[in-house]
């Protein structure tokens, strides 16, 4: 069939199976918007700011496993999208971001709304393209989807000059079924020799530990991870990005690790003799001081990205491959019955771990007459039956959500782990709700983060996306305040927000329901009421303890064994474990 460039773009998205495009119109993409207007297959979600479009597409991708698609105009449209693109890049989320560009004869002339989008996004995309000829448009889009979704996923930008989408020029269009890139062939199968070596090491382990990250979620390998972990009987910890890939309520789960990980997870990392790292990248928030990271351990690392291996921590047995495939092979190699591991040693190791666990490092003051943020998350967990999709912004509330909402399924916990982007939570929640309209979606946020993309409350109204906003409002940028308390002698430099809006009225002015909660006794009732409103967005403004801190905490540059514990916890705390 003969189509113009704009129709090719829209028809391609339809043929690619794209349900939603998150975007914002402007001069360079007007032809495309006109083509969108004339069809009903690809649905467009109009956001209020391009950053919101990228985060919404990102949330959709994280929850559904399908690529998120964004359409923005040139210049400021593209630059506004950059934060969202970088957010997806750091967490390896598949996005295809289509940016309009000035017409090819104007490129390089500092034309109106011209910016070098390919140049600006180059360091924060998996790959990007500038489409100079309309004949290349469909094939380039196909490559973009293929690169974004295969191997280690990531965002891909396709920059489309306005003349390429000229409605007056028609050319033949056929959906490109095949795509091949001679320079891009992601590995899938792990090396069988390496897998055998890993098995040998795992069987000999006395104090083993499994540490898994977002790669397990991305690879859809949750079932395989559970099967392997049960077969081995080893303790397992997840990174912030890996939560839910292994059920938090399973008895082998020892909680999250790292800067705000549990005492038992971090101590087990420090004392383990064999570490099986799966789809995790040894991020600095996980490792703490590299020189003291797992000092006694031989390390097996399974990852699809060779560049992740031995980047921060030198490993002993690297296995490059798709996590799902490698885990399947590991399970097969282990044999049909138990894993033939050293069960006597393992029993002794579990006794030690259970002793660490018994300190109950996540306890907090339950008798407080101000609302404790941890309590809100616990109640959220109870009321949603642990089944909600939970997005978050960045800061203390993010850590409490990670610690206290026990995720049993992958793709339920959606947060900006790598880039740490405040403003992510609300638009991401809208994307999740579009993917799963019948599920509960909660955005756990704080009064500082929520204001960074608050305008998307308007998008939620337009598309009837009844997510629940759980605003843990302590008046401070809580994590900044916490660091200032610990490391800057309580000089709270610009971390207190003096002129907050009335969030209840704000929510109401956007057409939603707002509820303010000031007493612990009202928390449960408010949550029940909010989740009872199936078709309304409810903004819950919880006025929480202003001085609560996130514990345990490993200060930047300290080892896993140097945790600072909450005053409520009786876990051993040597003087060098004191902060600052």
């Amino acid at each position, binding site marked *: 069939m003969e189509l113009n460039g704009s129709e090719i773009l829209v028809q391609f998205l339809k043929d690619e199976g794209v349900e939603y495009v998150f975007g914002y119109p402007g001069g360079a993409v007007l032809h495309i918007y006109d083509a969108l207007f004339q069809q009903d297959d690809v649905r467009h979600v109009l956001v209020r700011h391009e950053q919101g479009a990228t985060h919404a597409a990102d949330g959709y991708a994280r929850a559904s496993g399908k690529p998120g698609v964004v359409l923005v105009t040139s210049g400021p449209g593209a630059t506004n999208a950059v934060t969202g693109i970088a957010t997806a890049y750091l967490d390896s989320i598949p996005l295809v971001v289509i940016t309009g560009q000035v017409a090819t004869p104007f490129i390089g002339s500092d034309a109106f709304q011209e910016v070098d989008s*390919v*140049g600006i996004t*180059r*360091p924060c995309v*998996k*790959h990007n393209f*500038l489409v100079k000829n309309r004949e290349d448009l469909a094939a380039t889009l196909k490559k973009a989807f293929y*690169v974004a979704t295969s191997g280690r996923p990531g965002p891909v930008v396709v920059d489309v000059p306005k003349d390429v989408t000229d409605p007056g020029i028609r050319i033949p269009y056929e959906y490109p079924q095949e795509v091949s*890139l*001679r*320079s*891009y062939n992601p590995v899938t199968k792990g090396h069988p020799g390496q897998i055998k070596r890993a098995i040998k090491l795992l069987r000999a382990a006395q104090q083993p530990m499994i540490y898994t990250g977002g790669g397990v979620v991305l690879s859809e390998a949750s079932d395989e991870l559970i099967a392997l972990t049960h077969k081995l009987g080893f303790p397992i910890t997840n990174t912030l990005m890996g939560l839910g890939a292994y059920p938090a309520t399973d008895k082998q789960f020892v909680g999250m690790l790292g800067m705000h990980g549990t005492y038992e997870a971090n101590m087990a990392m420090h004392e383990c003799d064999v570490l099986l790292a799966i789809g995790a990248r040894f991020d600095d928030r996980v490792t703490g001081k590299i020189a003291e990271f797992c000092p006694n351990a031989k390390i097996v690392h399974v990852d699809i*990205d*060779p*560049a992740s*291996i*031995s*980047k921060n921590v*030198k490993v002993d047995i690297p296995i490059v491959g798709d996590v799902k495939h490698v885990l399947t092979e590991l399970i097969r190699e282990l044999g049909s019955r138990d894993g033939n591991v050293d069960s006597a040693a393992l029993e002794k190791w579990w006794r030690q771990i259970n002793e660490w666990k018994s300190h109950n490092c996540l306890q907090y003051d339950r008798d407080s007459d101000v609302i404790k943020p941890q309590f809100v998350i616990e109640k959220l967990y109870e009321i949603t039956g642990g089944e909600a999709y939970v997005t978050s912004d960045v800061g203390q509330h993010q850590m409490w959500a990670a610690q206290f909402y026990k995720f049993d399924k992958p793709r339920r916990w959606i947060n900006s782990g790598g880039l740490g982007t405040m403003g992510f939570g609300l638009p991401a929640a809208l994307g999740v709700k579009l993917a799963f309209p019948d599920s509960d979606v909660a955005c756990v946020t704080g009064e500082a983060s929520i204001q960074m993309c608050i305008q998307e409350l308007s998008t939620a109204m337009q598309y009837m996306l009844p997510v629940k906003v759980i605003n843990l409002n302590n008046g401070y940028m809580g994590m900044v305040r916490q660091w200032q308390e610990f490391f800057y002698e309580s000089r709270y430099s610009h971390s207190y927000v003096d002129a907050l809006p009335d969030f209840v009225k704000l929510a109401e002015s956007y057409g939603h329901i707002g509820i303010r909660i000031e007493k612990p006794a009202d928390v449960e009732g408010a949550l029940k009421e909010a989740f009872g409103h199936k078709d309304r967005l409810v903004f819950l403004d919880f006025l929480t303890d202003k001085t609560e801190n996130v514990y345990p905490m490993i200060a930047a540059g300290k080892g896993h064994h140097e945790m600072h514990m909450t005053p409520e916890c009786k876990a051993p705390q040597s003087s060098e474990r004191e902060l600052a």
Partner: protein
Amino acid sequence: MRHILSLLMENESGALSRVAGLFSARGYNIESLTVAPTEDPTLSRMTLVTRGSEQIIEQIIKQLNKLVDVVKLIDLTEGEHIERELMLIKIRTADENQRAEIGRLAEPNGGTLVDESGDTVTVELIGSGDQLDAFINSVERSSIIETVRTGASGISRGTRSLRI
């Protein structure tokens, strides 16, 4: 350690800036970089000289391989190889004697006088980076008007090769 990396890349606009951007973004060192098309017009070949510990070189190679435009890569310094760089150097000479002296310096190093105009001579020299350095050091520094070097390019000896 100094490493010479040879890359085959898609001959597309932006491919060079992906490589250069990678080095600046990750704080790697580039000593020299040359790039030109090959006998296959869809491919260009880049030679990149860098320094770093084994761990850093390993990361550089992995990160380069990750770039979608990089088709193939080898570390020439892992095996026997030939390294060549071309230099043009313009030198001020006061008289015939000095010009002759420059000629005598250049000749044993394979250099040729490619221009003599007024009181200057220009020498063309091809060799390894060290050989070019040695020549520069043998000339009186104040008499050097300008130098231009292509940066190293290289090829493996024998059967080892970089091709698709």
